[in-house]
């Protein structure tokens, strides 16, 4: 018969055995580096990222690099890991959120790795500045992109209209949108999205007027008249039927799959240039790319190069050297470059840019051509976004634009509300 004591002894022996068998395995792992990667994005991006991680593991024996894409709760999860002192080694950022995390002391400054572990001599000019916060390099831009209009070439050719080009003005864009919508003649399909709720488009619109969303010292960079002019443009276009209805626009969560172009409700999209590859992967029609409309044919473009995405290293990382080596491999290795293509922006390493540009794929080449074509028209990179910038985008810019387009408030009220609620959430 099995007594209780006997059972406990057995269980303890089993437990100890299991523990003992773990020990050599654990110590072997501790000697090397196990890197955890953390990013968001499409399945396509995840596949490219993991393929590069595999290449890295092959050329760096003893180092493993694993991770997975996280969707909607990306920032919530990251903040929770930060509090739990359990940050991944390598973390993906975009330009708005990096300053905040860096200033909280969560990210490792990379200055000491530059030129040694992370080789920078073939980087394009100004690349390191794209992720510089308070004078320190807080991350490495993985690719650059800029603002672009992505359009369905077939919609324009069927309608017999010329798509927008580098010199199209906002006025011409509005007329073209109205015409195209009429020519397509389909229920619930319009030419343009209602960009009044996109803060990136508003930012470029303001840069074309010598301003910007935010000032150097982290205040709102525009006044109520700028906002009025902005809302007036889009509200007029909406009433003329050139841009999508409000119930279509309010579904947009600033992701490719919620965007009117991807959902088949519009023929154009205001997007980042690296997203061309993502849009083309979900749409059958051949897409084209050009810059945002301008105020005057020869007026400033308002564009600037921005880091499409950024890798940073968590301050609590146990193997920062291996993490830095991974980032170096990611941006400087030609094989990695081929796998990544332009999905995270046009490569910052000019040699890699050449390698990817020489590939036959048309979409990456179009992306690179676009980024190169605007080279002599881009302005300087704006100062880092102030605290509250994300909240301004999601909880002020979008709802106020929706209220206007659903007819709940007037253009003047929308402009006033944007300023007053903007001041509330932007804390410099």
């Amino acid at each position, binding site marked *: 018969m099995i007594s209780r004591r006997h059972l406990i002894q057995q269980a303890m022996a089993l437990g100890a055995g299991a523990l003992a068998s773990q020990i050599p395995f654990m110590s072997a792992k501790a000697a090397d580096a196990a890197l955890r990667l953390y990013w968001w994005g499409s399945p396509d991006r995840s596949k490219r990222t993991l393929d590069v991680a595999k290449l890295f593991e092959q050329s760096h024996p003893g180092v493993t690099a694993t991770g997975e894409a996280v969707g909607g709760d990306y*920032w919530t999860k990251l903040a929770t890991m*930060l509090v739990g002192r359990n940050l991944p080694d390598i973390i993906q950022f975009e330009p708005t959120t990096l300053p905040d995390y860096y200033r909280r002391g969560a990210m490792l400054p990379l200055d000491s790795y530059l030129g040694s572990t992370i080789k920078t001599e073939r980087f394009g000019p100004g690349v390191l500045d794209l992720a510089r916060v308070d004078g320190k390099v807080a991350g490495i831009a993985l690719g650059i992109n800029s603002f672009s209009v992505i359009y369905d070439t077939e919609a324009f050719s069927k309608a017999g209209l010329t798509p927008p080009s580098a010199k199209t003005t906002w006025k011409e864009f509005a007329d073209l949108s109205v015409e195209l919508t009429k020519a397509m003649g389909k229920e*619930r399909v319009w030419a343009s999205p209602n960009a009044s709720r996109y803060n990136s488009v508003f930012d470029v619109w303001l840069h074309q007027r010598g301003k910007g969303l935010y000032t150097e010292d982290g205040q709102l960079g525009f006044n109520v008249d700028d906002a009025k002019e902005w809302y007036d443009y889009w509200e007029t276009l909406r009433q003329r039927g050139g841009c999508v209805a409000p119930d*279509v626009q309010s*579904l947009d969560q600033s992701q490719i799959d919620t965007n009117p172009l991807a959902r*088949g409700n519009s023929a154009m999209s205001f997007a980042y240039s690296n997203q061309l590859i993502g849009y083309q992967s979900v749409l059958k029609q051949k897409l084209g790319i050009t810059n945002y409309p301008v105020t005057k044919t020869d007026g400033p473009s308002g564009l600037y190069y921005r880091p499409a995405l950024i890798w940073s290293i968590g301050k609590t990382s146990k193997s920062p050297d291996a993490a830095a080596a991974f980032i170096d491999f990611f941006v400087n290795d030609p094989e990695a470059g081929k796998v990544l293509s332009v999905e995270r922006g046009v490569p910052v390493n000019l040699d890699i840019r050449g390698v990817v540009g020489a590939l036959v794929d048309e979409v990456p080449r179009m992306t690179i051509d676009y980024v190169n074509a605007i080279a002599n028209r881009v302005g300087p990179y704006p100062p880092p976004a102030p605290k509250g910038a994300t909240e301004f985008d999601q909880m002020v810019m*979008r709802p106020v634009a929706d209220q206007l387009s659903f007819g709940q408030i007037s253009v003047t009220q929308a402009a006033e509300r944007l300023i007053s609620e903007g001041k509330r959430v932007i804390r410099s």
Partner: protein
Amino acid sequence: MEAQYLREDASRIATAADRQATTRHECGSALRYQLASYSFLLPWLIGFFALTLGPALSSLYLSFTDYDLVDTPYWIGIGNYARIASDDPRFLKAMQVTFTFVVLSVPLKLTFALAIAITLNKGLRGLTFFRAVFYLPSLIGASVAIAVLWRQIFAGDGLLNKLLASVFGYEGPSWISTPGTALYTIVLLAVWQFGSPMIIFLAGLRQIPQDMYEAASIDGAGARRQFLKITLPLLTPVIFFNAVIQTIDAFKAFTSAFVISNGSGGPIDSTLFYTLYLYQEAFVNFRIGYASALAWVLVVIICIFTALSFLSARFWVHYDD
């Protein structure tokens, strides 16, 4: 809730044991009986203290701080509560949305549940089958999958609009992204999950003695009169129970609004449920202190409502005794 019953049962057993022990003058065994009962309670106790009471108390503390998830919490007194009371338009909007939801969804759901329960109580063939089928939405209804399904049905190119277009030739809007209709799609989803009050109603209906109906019909009361004079009054304790439970549930509704609005509470905050606003403040804007204060305000609101229901019960709930 079950745990509560368990606890009550256990303490009853424990008191019985106490009495027994004292009569036998065995002090040691009284303690042992108590220990035994508490050890049976242990899983629930651990869960209650570690997962409910602990976090609740820490959130009470945090509600008086400016905690932002990263920096050390700084005591700001009633600052958060003062802001809720005087300076937060989105709080008011969230209250309005939540109260609309409660006021619409609870009576509709209960009426629907009662109607189905009465139909099922008519001695239908295959009762168990129908009971299971009607209960199904409640089992799966709170899940993310159903909310996703709902989003597809009421989207601009969704099932409902295709139906409307083919039958009536009417081009419907995207119901979930139009401020005037978005909330009602969620009310509909809630009403559809009538299963659990229905089961309880069904049990309540079975408790009503049949001879009352027989006596009434001999006295010449019709079906309508029987329903108003026998069924409803005798069912009031069950209605009361269901109303309280469903009201509390409705105040806490989160998943459907979160999924259908993609976490935004949009369009234009028209589906900004209280809990969704709380979530946004805590986990999107990282104002944990403020969100904790919001949580405690919700606790107080629910308490007030429950207290009011119990006070009103005196006037309309009939107990047998």
